[in-house]
């Protein structure tokens, strides 16, 4: 019954969820065998010290810089081509998977009919499958199929990132205000036109930001995949590390820093234009 000072009904669930989160995190720390003490052990410190000391000065011979420029361009090309292929798959998949495009939801208070939900599930399942296999595994697979070189990296990025982009796009569509879209549907508009006029204007900034962030991730991923022979900066980095050429490693890390800075600046610029 009503008491004079009713407690916030959300308080108990919040408390329970916090306790649950801690109870789940603690075994996680145990299972991952995290032991920060090992960083402070004397021999591992001197080992790391030697490796890092070799970083200075960064390598800057003309020949090496030329190689670096070429590898950087290749990395950028792998990341960009992979993203374009991923988008070709992710955009239709996101439109199919998102509840935001549900016609039935417009007249059911935002809740799509069970049939609509059932039809969306296979697409969600496909997206889950695509991103559940790490890109490095796809890369290893494709290196066997198409041989060493950038093609394997492009395909690996395309597949994994299609899964990620599709899922997040679908959720961004659902997270913006749905009333403009529903109003257009109630005036007889088709779903895709209603989406373009009702959802896209509100979602554009977030979509751009997420896409550019993923592009940045694709650059990093293409570097990692270089280690398994998928070309680009990663392959060079692998070679330099094997030869203990610390200066070259340092130059390449600086290049990564520049690339990420570039992606960040671009994202900021585009968001500013769209906001």
């Amino acid at each position, binding site marked *: 019954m009503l008491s004079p000072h009713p407690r916030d009904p959300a308080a108990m669930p919040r408390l329970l969820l916090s306790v649950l989160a801690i109870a789940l995190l603690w075994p996680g720390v145990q299972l991952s065998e995290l032991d920060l003490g090992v960083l402070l052990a004397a021999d591992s410190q001197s080992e790391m010290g030697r490796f890092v000391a070799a970083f200075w000065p960064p390598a800057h011979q003309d020949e090496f810089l030329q190689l670096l420029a070429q590898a950087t361009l290749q990395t950028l090309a792998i990341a960009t081509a992979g993203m374009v292929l991923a988008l070709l798959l992710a955009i239709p998949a996101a439109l199919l998977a998102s509840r935001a495009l549900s*016609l*039935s939801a*417009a*007249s059911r*208070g935002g809740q799509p009919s069970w049939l609509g939900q059932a039809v969306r599930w296979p697409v969600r399942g496909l997206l889950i499958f695509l991103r559940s296999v790490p890109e490095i595994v796809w890369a290893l697979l494709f290196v066997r199929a198409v041989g060493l070189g950038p093609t394997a990296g492009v395909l690996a990025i395309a597949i994994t990132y299609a899964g990620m982009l599709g899922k997040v796009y679908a959720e961004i569509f659902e997270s913006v*205000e749905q*009333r*403009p879209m*529903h*109003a*257009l*549907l*109630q*005036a*007889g*508009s*088709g779903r*895709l*036109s*209603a989406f*373009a*006029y*009702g959802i896209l*204007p*509100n979602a*554009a900034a977030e979509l751009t930001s997420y896409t550019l962030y993923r592009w940045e991730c694709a650059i990093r991923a293409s570097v990692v995949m270089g280690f398994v022979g998928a070309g680009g900066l990663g392959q060079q980095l692998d070679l330099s590390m094997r030869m203990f050429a610390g200066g070259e490693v340092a130059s390449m890390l600086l290049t990564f820093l520049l690339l990420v800075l570039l992606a960040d600046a671009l994202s900021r610029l585009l968001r500013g234009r*769209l*906001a």
Partner: protein
Amino acid sequence: MSLRLSGAHLQHSHSVHALRGVDLTIARGERVAIIGPSGAGKSSLLNLLATALPPSAGQVEVLGRAPWRLSARQRQQLRTQIGLIHQAPPLPARQRVVTAVLAGKLGQWSLLRSLVSLLYPLDIPGARAALARLDLADKLFAQCQQLSGGQLQRVGIARVLYQAPQLLLADEPVSAMDPVLAGHTLSVLCQHAQREGITLVASLHAVELALAHFPRIIGVREGRIAFDCPAAEVDQPRLDALYANQQLLTPTPPSPAPSLQIPRC
């Protein structure tokens, strides 16, 4: 026959009865105002007529068809002939006014035309003409977020005028406008309905505006129709009964504007 409700119930998810057994018939070309206290079910009634929501029980017939017995495609076809003006127009903040107005005809345009028009507005004169009737032509290329509440409401009305539906529904269409502008805007809507011979149903907070602009008044209270009569027969006792227990909160404000506007409708 433009609209017919028989025994229409509407129940929202939390078992609140928004409408209880409403019977209503509105002929083609009629102009009807719906009045009643807040939470009486005015918006629910309009949403039912706009086919935005299916009734929980009872029958709805709009423009001679039963929308909830049609296929989804046919219902979308029917909906292109229904225009609903929202109290808070659901327009994306960064959308330009011209695009927001042109969106009224999306149901009649092909997908390709809609998408091209998103890049370059394909019917600028049409959008300008719709806005000009509401004295808003100068805002054609402004963003919706730069407009005031009353201006946004007028953009929402311009969109529905551009849609040119057979059935015009309006949910508190002038609630964010000053009395003079509200009267003028209502008279634009009434003139449009009269000239095109289409049906106009509007819910209104201001009783004087309803009486001044609409020949037929429906009073709604607690999800039921309290009275349904010509404007001339709406007297003080009926209004007192309709707004009972709200008397202290909403004394009818003296407003000179409507009397100025009567001849325009």
